[in-house]
């Protein structure tokens, strides 16, 4: 009986140690900032690319050289911020 209890105690210690290790690893994952920054930057760039693309097409179509590009560039930038806001909100929800 005594022997069994000792075994259980050891097992308990082992489990506690592993749990601590798991917690440490979790903290490590949160520090991964590079991928986070990358995520955000692609969102802005993608929206800007679409905005500029639409602007160029509009200018080509209506022969209104810089105006369409200017307007849709600004729209694209705003859409980029909207994308970032949405990504951030999703990440906050996960935490």
């Amino acid at each position, binding site marked *: 009986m005594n022997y069994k209890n000792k075994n259980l105690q050891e097992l308990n210690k082992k489990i506690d140690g592993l749990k601590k290790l798991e917690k440490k690893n979790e903290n490590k994952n949160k520090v991964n900032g590079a*991928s986070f920054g*990358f*995520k955000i930057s*692609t*969102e802005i*760039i*993608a*929206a800007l*690319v*679409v*905005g500029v693309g*639409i602007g160029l097409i509009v200018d080509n179509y209506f022969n209104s050289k810089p105006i369409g590009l200017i307007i*849709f560039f600004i*729209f*694209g930038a*705003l*859409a*980029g911020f*909207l*994308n970032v806001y*949405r990504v951030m909100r*999703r990440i906050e929800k996960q935490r």
Partner: protein
Amino acid sequence: MAAKDSPLKQFEIDPISNIELGGYNISFTNSSFAMLITVLVITLFLTLTVNTRSIIPTRMQLISELMYNFIAQLLSDTVGDNGKKYFPFVFSLFMFVLIGNMVGMIPYQFTFTSHIIVTFALASVVFIGVTILGFINHGIKFFTFFYIPGVPFYMHPLLIPIEVISYLSRPISLSVRLFANMLAGHTLLKVFAGFVVSMPFFTGVFPLAFIVALTGLEILIAFLQAYVFAILTCLYINDAYHLH
């Protein structure tokens, strides 16, 4: 840059056999070969491991079931009950990207996900499919997706173009993220591999050690990017069901 030793040489497309059809170059290239290997690996792995169908699974069967459960859980978490229909699609997409990235981690093997046209084609399939799905579910009402309720009416001329651009930027951000991660990682590996041979005496050991660590990180990124691709697909499918 000297093309022979360039770190970007690994991304070159080499035709294995030249095929031309109706004026289009549809050669079987090293990229197609990598895709073929990927599909073969997925098919063989999934069929052979699940073949035994034992209640107490073997290790390999457990891996297959783990992947299945992973995507099934992802779909039911994000889309809900409607998501079950799209399991085959999301699972194929996830496995194709994941195994494609992993096959690319084998030295001398081509990484097809490091080409933006491949990832953009995948993202376009998702984007067009989800848009059609939205129209099937909601008909013409799908356009209200771009209309935000509870906003003063004079703001709508400003907000609707922003929403539309935000929607159109989805396939681009989806494809660029996967492509750039793979491109950057593999280029970095090759640059440091160049340091190993060019540094004097034994100092080449340090970049070599760094490459070993970096390879581990790359495998993590390979998995992470496949996961991100799958979860974003799920979120887009969810958007096609629930406007706002």
